[in-house]
């Protein structure tokens, strides 16, 4: 998503969010729509949303920064979310996560130098009976071990 980092215009942002203005409680759906479109919440979105919803800019910023999902910076081409919750820990999730981060040379939230993959922690994918689990770009994977994780990483770095 790095390659489409060019900032969208106010008009483009309005075009994405205005169709959702009729919803009850429209801010989260709007933010999701923006992130789905641009891969992040563009900086220019705050004044547009504040104006459209009659909110202060600080309030809009406060909402964006509250939620783990919304980001103000681009990710790598792929996003790998590794579950850190208890059920995955009980099946060796911590060691697997540590080995994966080491292999990629990044810390949590980090992006590999080649821009291929960003690794995020996630707290539970509901795959607790087939732990440890991860999600690669929206595709879930269970019963992971170093071998299966290696295959996933090969896929994203190819």
């Amino acid at each position, binding site marked *: 998503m790095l390659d489409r980092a060019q900032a969208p215009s106010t008009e483009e942002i309005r075009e994405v969010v205005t169709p959702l203005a009729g919803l*009850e*409680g429209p801010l989260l759906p709007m933010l999701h729509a923006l992130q789905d479109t641009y891969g992040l919440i563009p900086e220019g979105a705050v004044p547009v949303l504040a104006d459209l919803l009659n909110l202060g800019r600080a309030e809009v910023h406060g909402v964006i920064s*509250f939620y783990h*999902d919304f980001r103000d910076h681009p990710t790598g081409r792929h996003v790998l979310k590794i579950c850190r919750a208890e*059920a995955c820990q009980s*099946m060796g999730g911590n060691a697997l996560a540590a080995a994966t981060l080491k292999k990629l040379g990044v810390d949590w939230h980090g992006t590999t130098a080649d821009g291929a993959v960003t690794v995020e922690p996630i707290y539970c994918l*509901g795959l607790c009976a*087939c732990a440890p689990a991860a999600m690669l770009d929206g595709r879930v994977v269970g*019963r992971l071990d170093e071998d299966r994780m290696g295959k996933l990483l090969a896929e994203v770095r190819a």
Partner: protein
Amino acid sequence: MKIYVPMDSAATALGADEVAKALAREIAARGLDAQIIRNGTRGMIWLEPLVEIDRGDGRMGYGPVTPADVPAILDGSAQSLGPVEEIPFFANQTRLTFARCGVIDPLDLDDYAAHGGLAGLTRAIAMSSAEIVQEVADSGLRGRGGAGFPTGIKWKTVAEADADQKYIVCNADEGDSGTFADRMIMEGDPFTLIEGMAIAGLGVGATRGYVYLRSEYPDAIRVMRAAVKIARQRGVLGADVLGSGRAFDMEIRQGAGAYVCGEETSLLNSLEGKRGVVRAKPPLPALEGFLGRPTVVNNVISLATVPVIFEKGAQHYADFGLGRSRGTVTLQIAGNVKHGGLYETAFGLTLGEVVNGIGGGTATGRPVKAVQVGGPLGAYMPVSKFDTPVGYEEFDKNGGLIGHAGLVVFDDSADMLQMARFAMEFCAVESCGKCTPCRIGAVRGVETIDRIAAGDPGAADLLTDLCETMKDGSLCALGGFTPFPVMSALTQFPDDFVCQKEAAE
């Protein structure tokens, strides 16, 4: 020939899509007359991908299946598990809420109706609002999200509130580790949730509903959105619910990765487009909920259980259970366990029967050390408490809580000091920031546990004191219940907290 391959995310996470593709290729190559149906999961996750083949003599199971097994399965030469519903793990359950899950095509409304679906809503339409609320009260149904509050009382409060608009909000922010029942029913039988919400709407006089569904469940979001669309097209939702002349419609809303939004008041704030900060109660959401209007906030399983209560009658449901815990509990057996999955049964089995009997002990084959019941805010139960029966009051008496009935099993390699530290770390990451004991206490908690690990002899007392402050001084369960896993680890597994200095002496 009908072939069932689950599309539940636990199955796809284990390769069900690849298996379905291999089956489709092989069927085409052989020119077979076969139909592939993507069903939900039966809940026997250790057998996933579990393929079922119906050659006209019942559904025979195969699993776990890999694409390489496909030719032999179609030849009939592969080893079968036998009739799926005769596998003991499945046969011994009492499936009420999950009766259709894994059986039908989740998005086939006719299949749904053929398996008892819409019978409850049809019956509710002929009842008055007060009768609907009474039926739920008589069933003894209690909130399955964790708190166990009687659903009938909540509905009654909303029904009797006077307002121009009321809402039904479904809490599908299933963030607790070890729980997946909500995800499983939304992916495997979405219409039952829609039907339950419609009945709730008729019961309390609400015409609009929302499902607040966590973003970590993209598959469930997709299935629920598709199901709502179908339900609207077929007149189950809309201005004239099943020709009753009464309106109810609903929408699926996506969460944004905040664990605390599973707490009902922060969920409502989030749904309104605000920071997911906890609200003080009172006012109760039942009186001033979404947009300040009377709102029923119920968990997925609570609402998904409503149709079967109306289909079979409140008494039928209430006849199952133990003490004041009526009906069935949807146990989610997870973590380091041999036979992990969803097991719906009447309340009353003991913890040991669930873990060792049904779950078959650990996956690694090592001895069980602890079971965390009720998610990240639930206590770690040692093996010495395995005779505790699964019931709200029974667990409470033993220093635990059932919560959403998720059980995470740990073998003897688990370091309980690290698990206690993780509980505090998680609370620090996920705290909404409203209450000081939670926001700051969790950070200090991590530091204090690190001091115990480093050998500070006074740190354990400080941790105990801190936990009491968090328990008494937090508005919601995040800060208030984090002490459960921490203190249970400290008191039940003291050996793991023996500081290095002592150990060295």
